């Protein structure tokens, strides 16, 4: 039966809301642990660099349980919590659990292989692990997960590939991780409040500048250079200049386009986002080492899916910090470059509702002039990314607790570490690895061979290379120039 849409529609039936629920749940477990001392997060698996494989993982609080018990506990808890979401979203639970299990264990395998000291240890680490050479590939576990995912997504038999896709949900996993990243931002801001506020403000400003430049230029290029219809040009412009698949869908809905339009564009977006994820972190680490925060922010402006952006940010964070340790002898605090990448992307995501509302108003009242149709302001809320609420809720909760329940920031930071560190650190990173594996699995390069995508592919590549990336770099630099990550003692 068709029903009128309400403000709470989708609260238990969409991945966006379930990212909010799950992310907030894990952050609350961390907060309760810190405040009460009852250990609700010690089970979280923590991977680390290793030479002897039995030391490749352990429980976040090793006194609580053995490494193998922690690994099994992590599997069971993540499987159950995500399966609860899948149940409410009316997915096929049996298939989801089977597929998620494969994604989970592939991610574990990737994490362990990628953290082998001969692959991951830096020159400074080698003595600690008793080795005399290593590839110094920080973040290799992310790349390993991506490669394994891509092999399955592109080379595995079709039946198996399609089955595993049911448990490979990169945007869902990364949105859960981003809520935890909100906790990290709040936790770090307790001792670096001014820096965190600066980062948030710079990201917001850069995003507004990008909106005003990217979309009109991309739309014009689509219309004038590639002769696309208004319907195709608008959806392509939003997808490539705002927030990828989400923007393409939102724009198509706003301008009342046929659903096939954003679906075809979305196939392009995810493939190009993975190409950017593979290329950009290495390029930025090599050529923009002097502006690490601007480099991170540029990813948020140029990589068009949340998953690929955060993934690229995580790799860039590892590469930049390894280089800083080696060349400058400085230990940059983990996560600031990544948070810079996610910060700009989150601001972009938040405005999509407003942008879609503006486009809907223009299209319905001016372009199509459809009599009797009314654009509702509720569109803004329906399109608002709800996981962002979790990100800010987690950040403000940590700040509130940190500044109100403890005598000073140093005491607060230390007291909150017990519960928050496993969630914002180990668990968030594991969700990132799940995301990398999933991105690989769902990225099918054969999509580029689809009939009718030739001109669109050309338009996408041109606009990305000539408009989005150069302007994105410039804007990121203008608003973040000179910002360096805080340093920590080794």
């Amino acid at each position, binding site marked *: 039966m068709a029903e009128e849409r309400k403000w709470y529609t989708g609260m238990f039936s969409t991945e966006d809301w379930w990212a909010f629920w799950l992310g907030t749940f894990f952050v609350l477990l961390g907060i309760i642990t810190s405040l009460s001392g009852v250990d609700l997060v010690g089970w979280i698996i923590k991977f680390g660099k290793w030479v002897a494989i039995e030391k490749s993982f352990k429980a976040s609080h090793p006194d609580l349980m053995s490494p193998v018990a922690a690994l099994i506990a992590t599997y069971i808890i993540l499987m159950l919590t995500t399966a609860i979401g899948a149940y409410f979203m009316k997915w096929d639970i049996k298939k989801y659990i089977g597929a998620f299990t494969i994604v989970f264990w592939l991610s574990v395998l990737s994490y362990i292989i990628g953290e082998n000291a001969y692959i991951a240890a830096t020159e400074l680490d080698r003595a600690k692990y008793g080795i005399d050479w290593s590839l110094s590939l920080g973040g290799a576990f992310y790349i390993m997960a991506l490669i394994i995912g891509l092999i399955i997504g592109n080379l595995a038999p079709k039946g198996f590939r399609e089955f595993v896709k049911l448990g490979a949900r990169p945007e869902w996993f990364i949105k859960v991780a981003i809520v935890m990243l909100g906790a990290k931002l709040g936790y770090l801001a307790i001792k670096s409040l001014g820096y965190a506020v600066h980062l948030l403000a710079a990201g917001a400003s850069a995003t507004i500048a990008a909106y005003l430049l990217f979309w009109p230029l991309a739309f014009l290029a689509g219309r004038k250079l590639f002769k696309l219809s208004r319907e195709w040009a608008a959806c392509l412009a939003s997808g490539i200049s705002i927030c990828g698949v989400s923007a393409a869908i939102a724009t198509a809905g706003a301008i*009342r386009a046929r659903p096939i339009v954003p679906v075809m564009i979305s196939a392009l977006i995810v493939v190009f986002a993975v190409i950017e994820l593979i290329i950009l972190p290495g390029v930025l680490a090599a050529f923009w080492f002097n502006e690490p925060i601007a480099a991170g922010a540029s990813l948020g402006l140029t990589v068009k899916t949340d998953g690929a952006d955060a993934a690229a940010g995580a790799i860039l964070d590892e590469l930049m910090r390894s280089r800083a340790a080696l060349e400058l002898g400085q230990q940059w605090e983990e996560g600031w470059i990544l948070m810079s990448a996610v910060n700009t992307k989150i601001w972009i995501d938040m405005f999509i509702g407003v942008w879609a509302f503006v486009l809907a108003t223009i299209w319905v009242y001016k372009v199509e002039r459809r009599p009797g149709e009314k654009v509702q302001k509720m569109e803004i809320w329906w399109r608002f990314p709800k996981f962002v609420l979790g990100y800010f809720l987690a950040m403000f909760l940590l700040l509130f607790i940190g500044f109100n329940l403890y005598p000073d920031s140093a005491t607060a930071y230390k007291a909150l570490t017990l519960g928050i560190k496993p969630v914002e650190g180990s668990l968030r990173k594991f969700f990132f690895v799940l995301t990398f594996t999933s991105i690989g699995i769902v990225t099918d390069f054969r999509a580029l061979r689809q009939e009718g995508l030739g001109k669109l592919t050309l338009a996408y590549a041109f606009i990305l290379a000539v408009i989005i990336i150069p302007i994105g770099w410039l804007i990121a630099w203008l608003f973040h120039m000179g910002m360096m990550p805080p340093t920590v003692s080794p």
Partner: protein
Amino acid sequence: MMYTVNKKDFMRTVSFDIHHNGKEWVAHNDEITVTGETLDELDENIKLKLKKILSEGRVKVTMELDYRRNVPHWIWQYHPYYFYRTIFLDLD
């Protein structure tokens, strides 16, 4: 029942699910199905249909795209909602 009455403005409201079948838009609920190659044509056909069933006066019509039918499963995680159209028809 063909319509509900909105508690705020007491207007009759008819709700449809809508999808695109590759050729035309299809709006349907438990009782009626209406098609149109464009949304303008669909709106007009809905008006003609409702005129035969309902008495004169203003009617609010809502249409939510059947997301699961028109958008592949892998895309749902990116954005959960396509459009929810609201049109007002005078059945004179």
